[in-house]
């Protein structure tokens, strides 16, 4: 038995030495901001988009002289999409002395981090966690005042798309095919269904699939038999690309709708199949000069693999963070003290209107639950000489 303890003891010793060695003096000149998310593994597409988007803005701020003359130092932590590592990673960042966090990326891990961040009042802005529960806990009726986000909440775009289907497309019968077991897709599907009822649109089929599924013919056949006017596909672009292709092959000809998870779908289905579909988005790619500049700079720095919606919202998230930092610096608070963090939060709360984000040019406005109030952009996909091209349709 003793053997085990001896080993644990020596492991501890080793650890404590590393811990001592690691904790050096903090540079007073920089402001540390953490970026936390999956930078490797299956979810790296989202995690790296967030990381690069945010890093790009911080770099631009530094190039322009920093905040209050101080440089922003980005501390990255890769949690590999694992909840355990997200929590240890967050504490690691806190130990490193960050004053604000961009992240986490996925809802589940983000909420795990929020549970850690709320008690210590660490300001955090997520660019991609869309569930209501990130900023508001229904059970305890707590609003997490330290948490902000630059993306929509699930319910918002789900119900917007139902409105759109009913009012703009005149749909009377709708169907839904969503990924079960994912809070994002499930949240959108439920909000869509609820709003359909409100609008008097009959939901004739609500089908689900599981993660990793590739064959949707069975569900699509059921949907086809119900003969809907629109089919809502609130999933991620890879899955939905496949669904669109299979639906068309099967003979489903009606209009297909999607949520902001569709950004990037044009690479995964043909122009003929996608033409005439609509999806909700936080912004219309390339529609403004700022967006164009962002996209060009992003591709130049990181390639186009990670240029998706989250890169843009992360860029905005970084902007929001910097707005908070400015306020804190203006107040003369000292990094590492409680006041500083509160000052950042207050700064974001009060001054977010000044943040002319690329996905929200009219400035950010946070409601009582810290969710941004911004327009949904409806995109449509056009067949431009055989190339599927997402095109701005309307603000909604």
């Amino acid at each position, binding site marked *: 038995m003793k053997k085990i303890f001896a080993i644990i003891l020596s492991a501890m010793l080793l650890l404590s030495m590393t811990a001592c060695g690691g904790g050096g003096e903090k540079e007073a000149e920089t402001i540390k901001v953490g970026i936390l998310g999956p930078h490797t593994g299956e979810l790296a597409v989202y995690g790296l988009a967030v990381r690069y988007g945010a890093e790009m803005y911080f770099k631009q701020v530094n190039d322009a002289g920093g905040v209050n003359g101080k440089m922003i130092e980005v501390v990255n932590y890769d949690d590999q999409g694992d909840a355990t590592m997200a929590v240890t990673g967050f504490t690691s960042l806190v130990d490193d002395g960050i004053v604000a966090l961009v992240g986490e990326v996925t809802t589940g891990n983000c909420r795990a981090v929020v549970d850690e961040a709320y008690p210590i009042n660490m300001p955090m802005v997520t660019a991609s966690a869309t569930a209501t529960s990130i900023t508001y806990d229904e059970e305890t009726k707590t609003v997490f005042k330290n948490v902000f986000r630059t993306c929509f909440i699930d319910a918002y775009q789900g119900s917007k798309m139902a409105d759109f289907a009913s009012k703009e497309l005149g749909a009377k019968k709708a169907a839904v095919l969503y990924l079960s077991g994912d809070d994002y897709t499930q949240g959108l599907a439920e909000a869509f269904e609820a709003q359909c009822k409100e609008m008097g649109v009959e939901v004739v089929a609500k089908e689900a*699939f599981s993660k990793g599924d590739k064959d949707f013919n069975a569900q699509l056949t059921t949907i086809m038999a119900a003969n809907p006017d629109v089919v809502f596909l609130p999933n991620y672009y890879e899955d939905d690309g496949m669904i669109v292709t299979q639906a068309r092959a099967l003979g489903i000809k009606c209009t297909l709708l999607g949520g902001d998870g569709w950004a990037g779908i044009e690479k*995964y289905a043909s122009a003929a199949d996608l033409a005439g579909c609509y999806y909700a988005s936080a912004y219309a790619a390339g529609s403004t000069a700022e967006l164009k500049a962002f996209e060009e700079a992003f591709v130049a720095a990181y390639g186009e693999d990670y240029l998706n919606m989250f890169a843009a919202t992360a860029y905005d998230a970084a902007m929001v963070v910097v707005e908070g930092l400015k306020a804190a610096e203006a107040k003369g608070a000292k990094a590492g003290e409680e006041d500083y963090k509160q000052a950042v939060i207050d700064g974001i709360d009060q001054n977010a209107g000044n943040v002319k984000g690329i996905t929200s040019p009219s400035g950010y406005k946070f409601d009582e639950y810290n969710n941004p109030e911004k327009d949904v952009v409806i995109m449509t996909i056009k067949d431009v000489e055989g190339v599927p091209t997402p095109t701005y349709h309307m603000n909604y």
Partner: protein
Amino acid sequence: MSTLSLIIKQIINALQLGSIFALIALGYSMVYGIIRLLNFAHCDIIMVGAYISWYFMTNFANMPYLAVAAAIFGCTLLGVAIEKVAYTPLRGSPRISLLITAIGVSYLLENTAQLWLGAAAKSVPPFFKVTTLSFMGLSVSTTSVVTIAVVTVSMTALTLLVQKTKMGRAMRAVSEDSQTAQLMGTNINATISFTFAIGSALAGIGSVLYCCAYNQASPTMGSMLGLKAFVAAVLGGIGSIPGAIVGGFVIGLTEVFVSSIGLSTWKDAVVFLILIIVLLVKPTGLLGKQVNEKV
């Protein structure tokens, strides 16, 4: 759509899905039959095949035959290489070591692909123009027709190979009793490699069909597919060719049936439940043979 045509449509869906499962299940079944190894890496061979298809179809879009040939050849080569490098040194080791090695190979392939090609799925351009055939009021996509046809041909060819050729006889002999087969002058190593080659070639065909039907290649695409195909193989009776086919179709039918009655989220659970029940009632699977352990 009338109820009848709906049912027929779903049956066609089940046949398409089931035939892909059956094709992959065959690979598992053959390898298991010959060296009693649950080849976890088999499904990742399909993944590699899909990436090869993707590479050739994006770079040489007008030569789909080249892509097909490359995928099948690449998979065959990979399968044999895995067998030589990872499994041959372990012949005679406990089965658990072999199984863990197989898991290791599977993880290695997946993670290498992820690191090298990124976690995002690659879209594979269509091999042929997909149209919808209308037939007596039924619409069937050409993909389904091609899939079912190719799988039927492959199965027939394989059955002939195993039943009628010398190599097929050697394969059966080795899976029956490798020691005796060796005494009778069968070249065990060659036979095992050949089995891996055939199984992997089938995986190559499977990967092409997969890309036709689902037009995407991603690093983890094989894991669930492989697991289901393995379930199909076990369900039908591992080591048996008709068993793999039956198992594949049973799984396909089950999935489609469960999905079509609106319980698609429980689909995987139902598949595993059926597996567990079958194994408990008949541990050798539906068409498997009882093998007495030598004491």
